[in-house]
Each structure stands twice: as structure tokens, then as C-alpha cells.
């Protein structure tokens, strides 16, 4: 809705810029960023309405609850010309506002800072609840990680989202099955995740989190209750030696890694 860049192209730009940013800044979380690059690109190129209009009264809202994927969001906004592309060079650098975890301090297009897990989704509930009470048609989208579901605050929010039938709220779970040390199932088992969420009364849709057509279909599906999209993803997606490897949760790519990775992305 906001861009003429095809979502596939935007996803490539998010991946390549994020690789460069995390390498230059020697920052972590490239695996998590690559995991959600397709979700961000479909959301921002085809779903989210970033401008107020007469019908919606307010713009849509996007909250990145998995704040450690900040570089991906910054890159996405930059390639949509919503923030200055030159700012990307400052990511993680001394004196920069582009922190490793997402910050709302430099752009009106980022409304909430996160980083501690389990905050973004409950805040999103507040935003969506207000929209619903006020009767405006804006929608709220919140991207969370699967490991983040260990945080109890999210389950308070699931109860709330169902109780108030927040059908203007969509939560996307980046289900890459890996968290910082090992798999989600070895850490604090989430499965059967779909059934758990269904039992909360939520509308749960599973899809391939790298298939843009499937993602778009999931986003466009009408719902009477709060919607949860379990987007099955691969951590490190797009770079063969990073895929499904927990190593790239924290490791930053070297210049040699970057050369190989950018070739694969392009």
C-alpha cells in the first residue's frame, strides 16, 4: 500500500542492508533479522497503511516486539524512503540513535521502543483497544519472536486480546524454532503452539513465513477475533551458512561472510 517496490525486492534490500549494518556495527541478531525479512517486506509493501485518511481516521500501527531485529526494520523504512538511507550507516555506532534494539526516538514511523521481550505485544493490545473503543478503523500489527513467548506478559496479553475481541489486532509469531542458545522446544517447550493459542479463543493461521503470497493471504483474512499468524520461518533465511544455525543469533558477520552472503542474497 505504501510502496511501488515489489515485496520480493524489498525483502532482498532488507536482507542485504541488514547484513551490511550488522557487519559494520559488529552487532548481533542477523539470524533473527533474516528470519523476519519477508514478514516485514510484505507488511510494509502490501498491508500497512502508513497515512491517515478519511475512512481510517488514523494510520495503521506496527510494533516490533522482537526489538533485536531493529536493523531489519530500519532498513525496511529506509528503502521505502520513510527514513534517510544515510542513517543506516550510523546503526550501532557511537552517538547514533539507531540502537541495536528498536528505538522510536528518531522517526515518527517507529512508535514504540522495545528490546526487553514481552513488552511490544501488550502495548499493541493497548493501541488496538483504543482504536476499537474510539471506533476508528486503523489496524495494529505486532511482530513477536517465538522464543519471546517464554515471557508470561504475552500470555496476559493473549487473554486480554481475546476477552476484548480485538479483531483489529494481528500478531505475527516469527516461528523459526530457535532462540538464543538452542531450540525453543529444548528451552521451554511451546508446542502444541497452535492449539494453545486456539484454546485462548484467538484466530490462528499458520503459513510459510517466507512465501509472500501465503503471508499476504494470512494478513488479508477477515477475522472476528484477534488474529495470530504463526509464520513458519528459518532463522538466517537466505544465507545458506546462517540458516537454522543458532550461532548467528549473536555472531556478527565478518567482511568475508558478507561477500559470500550478499552473493547468495542477490
Amino acid at each position, binding site marked *: 500500500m505504501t510502496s511501488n517496490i515489489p515485496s520480493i525486492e524489498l525483502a532482498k534490500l532488507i536482507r542485504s542492508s541488514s547484513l551490511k549494518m550488522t557487519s559494520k556495527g559488529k552487532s548481533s541478531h542477523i539470524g533473527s533479522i533474516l528470519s523476519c525479512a519477508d514478514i516485514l517486506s510484505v507488511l510494509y509493501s502490501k498491508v500497512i497503511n502508513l497515512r491517515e485518511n478519511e475512512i481510517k481516521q*488514523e494510520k495503521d500501527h506496527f510494533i516490533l516486539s522482537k526489538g533485536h531485529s531493529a536493523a531489519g526494520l530500519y532498513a525496511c523504512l529506509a528503502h521505502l524512503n520513510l527514513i534517510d538511507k544515510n542513517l543506516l550507516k550510523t546503526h550501532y555506532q557511537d552517538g547514533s540513535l539507531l540502537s541495536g534494539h528498536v528505538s*522510536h526516538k528518531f522517526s515518527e514511523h517507529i*512508535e*514504540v*521502543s*522495545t*528490546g*526487553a521481550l*514481552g*513488552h511490544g505485544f*501488550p*502495548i*499493541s*493490545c*493497548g*493501541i*488496538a*483497544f*483504543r482504536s476499537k*473503543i474510539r471506533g476508528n478503523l486503523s489496524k495494529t500489527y505486532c511482530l513477536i519472536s517465538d522464543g519471546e513467548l517464554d515471557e*508470561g*506478559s504475552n500470555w*496476559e*496479553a493473549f*487473554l*486480554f486480546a481475546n*476477552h476484548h475481541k480485538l479483531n483489529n489486532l494481528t500478531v505475527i509469531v516469527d516461528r523459526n524454532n530457535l532462540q538464543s542458545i538452542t531450540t525453543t522446544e529444548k528451552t521451554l517447550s511451546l508446542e502444541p503452539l497452535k492449539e494453545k493459542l486456539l484454546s485462548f479463543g484467538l484466530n490462528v493461521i499458520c503459513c510459510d513465513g517466507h512465501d509472500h503470497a501465503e503471508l499476504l493471504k494470512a494478513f488479508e483474512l477477515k477475522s472476528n477475533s484477534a488474529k495470530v499468524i504463526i509464520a513458519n520461518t528459518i532463522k538466517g533465511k537466505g544465507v545458506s551458512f546462517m540458516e537454522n544455525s543458532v550461532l548467528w543469533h549473536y555472531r556478527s558477520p565478518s567482511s568475508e561472510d558478507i561477500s559470500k552472503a550478499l552473493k547468495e542474497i542477490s
Partner: protein
Amino acid sequence: MRDIFVAKVKKYLTEVPNSFFLTADLGFGVFDDFPTLYPKQFFNVGVAEQLLSSISCGLSLSGDKVFTYSIGIFPTVRCLEQIRNDICYHNSNVLITTSGAGFSYGSLGISHHCTEDISMLRCIPNLTICSPASEQEAAICIDRILNINTPCYLRLDKLNAKSFISEEKSLYGPFIHKSSKENKFLLLAHGSTVQIYNETLELYPEIEEKVTIATVPFLHQNEQLHDLLSSYKNIITVEEHQLAGGFGSFINEQMNICESKAKLRRFGLNHFSDIVGSQSYLRNLYLPNPSDIFEIIKTTR
């Protein structure tokens, strides 16, 4: 004090329909008519203080005022990170209120003793902390706090001090309850512990000319507070809160900033209370009583 708070909030919710009031399942018998009066403003989010705080941040992102309410340390310490990261970092228009400061719920045990909250919250940027001492002070402070559109924390005691403000030194305090001609002793309180000083004067009227009694309801640095702290030789603080990082620590810091030469004696807690009891009982047990205050004044040259 809670009744005054409820009356003020009702007026506000009526006059400002874009505001919200959230409770974390507390206030039985207090907010009974709120769901009917304010169906689009009053919500019980359940026993979920983390949710309470984060939702208030989301609701207020567009600037609407949000009240959050619970008792004891539940709306603060339970969800400290949500207050820091969500409410305060986003400088949200949220007023957090606890009914049950200090030992207000003393008989219920340490889970309900609200005696560490100030220390934990005082260092968070953007947050204004307020503890009124009496119904009169609550009415003044709540009016002022309702005009602050950034994060605030209101602590309501169950006990009410019986003294009255005779002079407001600044918008946010200090408030003078009793002034003296001699600038020998400044007795300071944050909340209803000022009543200990009032009772001291009632029992020992001979010290009346030596002591000034003042409350500092807002932990807010200001010139008038500095002027007061610089004008006395001896300062006493009494708080129903841990000494570490509490009201006395705030005063100590302010004295350092304004280079006050006064001798400061701080009274408060330095341990949990395994013993339970009414607020009056525990206050008498752990804080100086009027004869202790009198003794200090009598023996200090």
C-alpha cells in the same frame, strides 16, 4: 484520601472523555458505579500488572491520559520494567496510583507492605512521585497531578495526618504545616508520617518555637525546597519506607545540591517486617514516637 482521589477521577473522566481508567482487579466497592458511568473509559484488566502498565502505554500513545490503579507495590514493583521501558521511556500520560502506601495493609504481611517502591522508582527518568499527607493535601496534589501530562506515581496512605497546610512554598511543595520563629529544627515528611510531628507538638508544646513542620509531597527539586533546607540547623526526616533510596535520601541529595550545612537525621526502615499489624501499630514499632523526637530536640544544642 482514596475517596478524594475517586471523586477527582470521576470529575476528570466526565470532563475528559478521551481518558481511561484501568484497575488490576482491585477497588471492590470503590469503583462499583464506574462501569456504568464510564463504559468506554473504565476497564478491569484482571490480576495482571505487567499488562496494566504496558496497555496504559499503548492507550496513551496518542496523548490520552490513562489512570492505572492497584494497591501496595502491585502497580509498581511487580511491573517495574514495564514502568521504566514502556510508560517512562515513552513519556506517557499515565498516572499510576496505589492505595496502600507504607504499612496501610500492614496486617496482610510483607507482600502487601509498600515500603520499597520509592527507592525503586525514584531513579527512573520522567516519573513524578507524589505522596500526600492528608485529605487536604491530597485534594491539592491530585489537582496538580492531573495537569501533568507525563508519567506520575501517586501513593495514597490509609492514615490521614490531622494538620493543615498554612503556607505553600512552591507548586509541588514544600508545604508548611507549622512554622517557627527560630530556624532550629525542620521536621520533614513525605506522606502521613507528618502526624508523628503533629503529635509531638501536642504533647510537648514547649518546643513550638523551635520547630517548623513541613511536608514534601512531590519528590521534585525546586528552589523553595532548597531555600528551606538551607535555612535550618537541624533537619529530621521520618518515612514509612526503607531508608535506602527513600525520602530521607532524596532530602540528603537536595541538601548536597543546595549546600545546606544542616545536620540531617533520617528515620525509616532497614529491614522487612516479619511482624504484622495495623499501620499505626507498625509505625509506632519502627519509627520514632513523639517522645523520641522531643528527646532529640531537647538534647540538641
